[in-house]
């Protein structure tokens, strides 16, 4: 089993797009669950979607949660409080940039790395070369 990934976004399309990009790099070896948009499909977050995504991605190796904006932290934390403590212990909320972090996390997780390693890989998303220095 490899570390699971959860994408929390205010936009359903954004969450799905990030997952499809990350999945290209992990070849189905990593569970990437999404929680995008509100229950009624508008822009925002849904605790029920976050809980469902955490459950879907849950596994003994742990789960890395990536977020689009800072305000998604609160709903994610509330969702975590609803998991049983053993589950909650093995979840890290990433501070990485969403897209770049998700792609690097998917690569790292597919290699069978630990949660700490996957979280660190996601943070390398800040240094992903783009633009002129690529």
């Amino acid at each position, binding site marked *: 089993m490899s570390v699971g990934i959860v994408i929390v976004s205010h936009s359903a399309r954004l969450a799905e797009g990030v997952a499809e990009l990350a999945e290209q790099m992990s070849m189905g070896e990593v569970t990437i669950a999404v929680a995008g948009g*509100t*229950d*009624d499909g*508008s*822009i*925002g*977050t*849904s*605790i*029920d979607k976050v809980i469902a995504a955490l459950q879907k991605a849950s596994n003994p190796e742990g789960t890395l949660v990536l977020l689009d*904006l*800072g*305000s998604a932290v*609160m*709903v994610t*934390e*509330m969702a975590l409080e609803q998991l049983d403590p053993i589950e909650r212990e093995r979840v890290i909320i990433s501070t990485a940039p969403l897209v770049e972090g998700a792609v690097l996390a998917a690569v790292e997780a597919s290699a069978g790395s630990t949660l700490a390693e996957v979280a660190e890989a996601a943070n390398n998303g800040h240094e992903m070369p783009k633009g002129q220095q690529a």
Partner: protein
Amino acid sequence: MPVTHEDILHWLQRSAQVLHENSAFLTELDSAIGDADHGINMDRGFTAVSTKIAGVSDADIGALLKTVGSTLVSTVGGASGPLYGTAFLRAGMATSGKQVLETPELIAMFDAALEGIKARGKAQAGEKTMLDAFIPAVDAAQQAAKDQLPVPQLLQSMAAAAEVGMNATIEMIATKGRASYLGERSVGHQDPGATSCWLILQALSDTVSPEIPHEE
């Protein structure tokens, strides 16, 4: 004259109504320094609350407030969902099993709600959030309790302090939430969350105030 379970029900229904009426206004405030949804979010949340509590007959205030909290968390969809949700959940824990709230229970309830918002949002006074209405309101409630004012006056002074605090957000620079993305450009705009906070506290005061007749 304590606050009864029925008062709380009336307050919640009145809040739902007031937030519905002010939905466009709150959204307009949020459009200046946020993502133009605070009115929509609060209206959606309190409409769900209103439906959820319509059939509640059990007189446990704590259980009622916990239901409100979890309903808001599930339906608001914005930062204000976990924040108000946590506030009501903590308020419900602080009033667990209570059928009426005397001044000490009210103070304990507001303290718990305030601590909940602080813990959830990791913000403090002066960051241009709902806390800038709620912190002075809770301070005012404590002062009123010390001065042994009756409950209606205590709630009136809370609402008045919330309003002053809300107006003070206009000059503040946002350092939490979406408005912080604007940095100094957030100055000159009233915080939507502080405004909804005042509306909710004003609704409570109006509900229990004997001077103003209830409409429900």
